[in-house]
C-alpha cells in the first residue's frame, strides 16, 4: 500500500543526481523519499528490506519502449510490458506515438493513462505524434497534447514530407518549449534496406541501410534546430558519425540530446550473419567501430540516456524470410544485465550506468524524477549485480520473446522496485522483515 513506511537497508545507495554512492538506508513514507544514508532517529518502518550486496537506486526511466497497446495486443499490452518494465527496474516508460490509433489526440493520451492506471505497473508517459496520424504533413494539436500530459512529441521514425514541415513543427513546438524526439533516418537513402550497409549485407545480399541515412537526417535536423531554437532529442542513435555531429552541436550550445539502445552497445552487423531475424532491428546494428564510438559517447555523457527501444513481437513476426520479418527486439529485461556488462568491461562505472538510466533521461524529458532527493516520489529500483539468471519461460515477463539472448545466462537481477511508494517484487519475494509500531 502507498502510505507504507519502508526501510531499505544495508544496500549500496547510488543516486547520481546528488553524487550519492554510500552503503546505507533509504527511508520512504507517504510515497516519497524521506531520508537517504542514515536512518533518522524516530523513523519506524512498517516493513524493512535488508539488501546487503545490492544496489539501491532511482527507478529506471526508458525513453522508448513499445508496449503495443492500444492496437497490437497480440504483441503485448500495457499490463504485460508494464510488468516486464518493473521486472527490469524501469518505473517509468515513454511510449512512442505509433500505437493504433496513433497518439495524436488528447483522447488517446487519456486512454493510455487510464490503461496504465488500471494495470498498475510502471508509470507510462505517452509521446505525442508530431503529425496527425503520423502522416508527415499535418501538425497534430501539439499544445493540446502537451496539456493532456505529453512531455514530448515525435514522429516515431515515420519520415516527414519535407524539411519545410520539419521547420514548421520545430518552430511551433519551440513556442511551447515542447521537446521534439527525432528518430533520424533519411527515407530515400534508406530505400528498401533492412540491415547495415556493410560487409554482412554485401555477403548475404541483403539491401543495406547506409550509415549516411542516419547522419544526413541528423545534419538536416541540426540546421533547423539552430534556426528555430527547439529542444530536440535524437534517438536511438546507431552510428559514430551521427553521434559526432550531435556532440559538436552540444559543444556549440544547441539544445540537443541523444540516446542509444542498450543492444547497440553490444551487438554489431556480424550478429545478423546466418540471416538471424532476431537481430533485425531498426536502426540496424552497425559496425564494431560504430559500437565502440557509441560506448565512448555514453561514457563521455554526450549520449545522456540509454533506452531499451523495446519492441515485443508475436512469433509470426520473425518467422519469415529475413527481409520480410518485422524489425525490433524485446529488450526491457536485458537492459540491466547488458549495462552491467559495460561496467564489467570498464566502459562505465556503476554510478554512470545508473545515471544514464535515471537522471539522464529525466533531465532530457524535463521530468522531476530519476533521483532520490528528500521529497522525491518514491520510485526506486533495487538490484543484485551478481545474481545470475537464465532467460527462459520461467524468468521472462514480456509477451515478446524476440531476443537473441534467449536461453543465455545473465548477471544482474532486479529484486525489488518501489513505484510511487508501492512495493513490487517482480522476480520473486525477497525476505522482508515486518516491523510494526508497538
Amino acid at each position, binding site marked *: 500500500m502507498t502510505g507504507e513506511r519502508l526501510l531499505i537497508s544495508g544496500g549500496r545507495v547510488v543516486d547520481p543526481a546528488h553524487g550519492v554512492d554510500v552503503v546505507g538506508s533509504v527511508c520512504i513514507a507517504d510515497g516519497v523519499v524521506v531520508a537517504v544514508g542514515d536512518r533518522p532517529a524516530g523513523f519506524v518502518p512498517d516493513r524493512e528490506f535488508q539488501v546487503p550486496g545490492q544496489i539501491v537506486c532511482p527507478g529506471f526511466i526508458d525513453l522508448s519502449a513499445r508496449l503495443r497497446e492500444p492496437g497490437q495486443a497480440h504483441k503485448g499490452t500495457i499490463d504485460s510490458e508494464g510488468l516486464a518494465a518493473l521486472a527490469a527496474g524501469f518505473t517509468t516508460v515513454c511510449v512512442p506515438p505509433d500505437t493504433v490509433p496513433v497518439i495524436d489526440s488528447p483522447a488517446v493520451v487519456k486512454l493510455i493513462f487510464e490503461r496504465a492506471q488500471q494495470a498498475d505497473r510502471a508509470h507510462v508517459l505517452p509521446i505525442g505524434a508530431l503529425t496527425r496520424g503520423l502522416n508527415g504533413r499535418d501538425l497534430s494539436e501539439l499544445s493540446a497534447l502537451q496539456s493532456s500530459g505529453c512531455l514530448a512529441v515525435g514522429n516515431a521514425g515515420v519520415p516527414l514530407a519535407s524539411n519545410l514541415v520539419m521547420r514548421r513543427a520545430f518552430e511551433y513546438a519551440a513556442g511551447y518549449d515542447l521537446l521534439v524526439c527525432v528518430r533520424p533516418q533519411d527515407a530515400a537513402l534508406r530505400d528498401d534496406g533492412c540491415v547495415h550497409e556493410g560487409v554482412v549485407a554485401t555477403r548475404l*545480399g*541483403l539491401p543495406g541501410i547506409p550509415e549516411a541515412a542516419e547522419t544526413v537526417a541528423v545534419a538536416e535536423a541540426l540546421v533547423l534546430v539552430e534556426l528555430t531554437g527547439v529542444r530536440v532529442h535524437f534517438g536511438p542513435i546507431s552510428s559514430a558519425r551521427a553521434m559526432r555531429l550531435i556532440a559538436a552541436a552540444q559543444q556549440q550550445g544547441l539544445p540537443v540530446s541523444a540516446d542509444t539502445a542498450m543492444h547497440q552497445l553490444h551487438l554489431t552487423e556480424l*550478429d545478423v550473419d*546466418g540471416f538471424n531475424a532476431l537481430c533485425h532491428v531498426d536502426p540496424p546494428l552497425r559496425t564494431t567501430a560504430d559500437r565502440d564510438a557509441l560506448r565512448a559517447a555514453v561514457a563521455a555523457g554526450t549520449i545522456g540516456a540509454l533506452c531499451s527501444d523495446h519492441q515485443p513481437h508475436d512469433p509470426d513476426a520473425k518467422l519469415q*524470410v529475413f527481409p520480410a520479418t518485422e524489425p525490433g527486439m524485446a529488450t526491457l529485461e536485458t537492459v540491466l544485465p547488458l549495462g552491467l556488462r559495460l561496467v564489467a568491461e570498464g566502459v562505465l562505472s556503476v554510478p554512470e550506468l545508473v545515471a544514464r538510466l535515471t537522471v539522464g533521461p529525466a533531465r532530457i524529458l524535463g521530468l522531476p524524477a530519476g533521483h532520490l532527493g528528500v521529497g522525491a516520489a518514491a520510485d526506486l529500483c533495487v538490484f543484485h549485480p551478481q545474481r545470475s539468471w537464465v532467460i527462459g519461460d520461467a524468468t521472462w515477463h514480456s509477451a515478446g520473446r524476440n531476443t537473441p539472448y534467449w536461453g543465455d545466462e545473465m548477471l544482474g537481477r532486479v529484486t525489488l522496485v518501489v513505484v510511487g511508494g508501492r512495493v513490487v517484487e517482480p522476480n520473486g519475494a525477497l525476505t522482508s522483515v515486518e516491523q510494526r509500531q508497538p
Partner: protein
Amino acid sequence: MKSVPAGSLQLDGAGKLRHFLTIEGLNAPLLTRIMDTAESFSSVTEQTVKKVPLLRGKTVVNLFFETSTRTRTTFELAAKRLSADVLNINIATSATAKGESLLDTIRNIEAMQVDMFVVRHAHSGAAHFIAQHVAPHVSVINAGDGRHAHPTQAMLDMFTIRRSGRDFATLKVAIVGDILHSRVARSEIQALRMLGVRDIRAVAPRTLLPAQAEDFGVSLWTDLDAGIEGVDVVVMLRLQRERMSGAFIPSEGEYFARFGLTERRLARAKPDAIVMHPGPINRGVEIDSQVADGLQSVILQQVHYGIPVRMAIMSLAMRSGQDAVAGGRQGT
C-alpha cells in the same frame, strides 16, 4: 547468443551435403566432387535413354516464388533424368498470393511426403529459412534467393570453366556488370576463390558495386577496357532495365559504351578467352550479338551443363538426407 553462419546449415555431421544453399561454408573437395559427379552424368545425358534410377520413387518439388524458365526447366529435366517425380509449383499464382504464410505453404507441401524442395524466391535468405524449418528427411536446393546466392549456377559455371580445360590456380576472371543486385556474382566469386582463383576482377560502375566489395577478395574496376586485359574468362551479368529509373546508370547507351562486351573489347582478353553469361541476355545492352553468338561464347554450353551439374547436386544432397534419416532411425 547464437549466430549460425549461413553456410553451416547445409552440411551434416560427416561434412556431406544436406542442403545446397550457398557456396559459402563449403570446401574445394566438395565442389570438385560435385563436378566429378556431373562429369559422370554428362555421358548419361548424351545417351539415347537419358535416365538413371538414382532418385526413383523420390518426389522433387520445384517451388518458384519468382518466375524463371531456364533454371526451372533444367531443374525439372535434371530431376526427371534421375527418375524422380517432379511437381512444379508456381507460387506467384498460388496460396501465398491468398495470404498463406511461407511456412504454412512449406508445411502443407511437406505433408504430401516430398523429399526435396528446389526453391527460388525474391528475398535473400529464403532457401536458408526454409531449410531451417523443413522435416529432417527433406533437402533444400537454392535455385536463387534475392541478391544472396545462386549456387547451382555458380557450379555449372565452374564446370564450364573446367571443361574448357583451364586450371583454376592460374585463372584470371572478369565479372562484369550489375554485381550489386546479382546473386550469381556472389556465388561465382565464392566458388572461384574456393577453387583457388586469385585474380578475380569485379568490373562495374560504382553504383552497381556493393559496399566493401573488396572484402570478397576481388579487385574493383570501373573501366572494362582495363579490367578485361589478359583475362581467361569473362562473365557478363544481365542489366535489368529498371536500374535506369533507380539512378544507377544514366542510359543503356552510356552503359553499353562503357561496359558492353564487343569484339573489339574482347580482343583485349586472352585470345582463347571464353565468354559466359547466366542469361537471359540483353543483346546490345551488356553484350553485342556478335560476341554472344561468336566462337568464344560458351553461353549455350552453360545451359547444357546445367542439367548434369544439377543432377549431381540433387543426387548428392538426396543421398546425404536419406543417410541422416537412416542413421537417426538406427540410433533410436
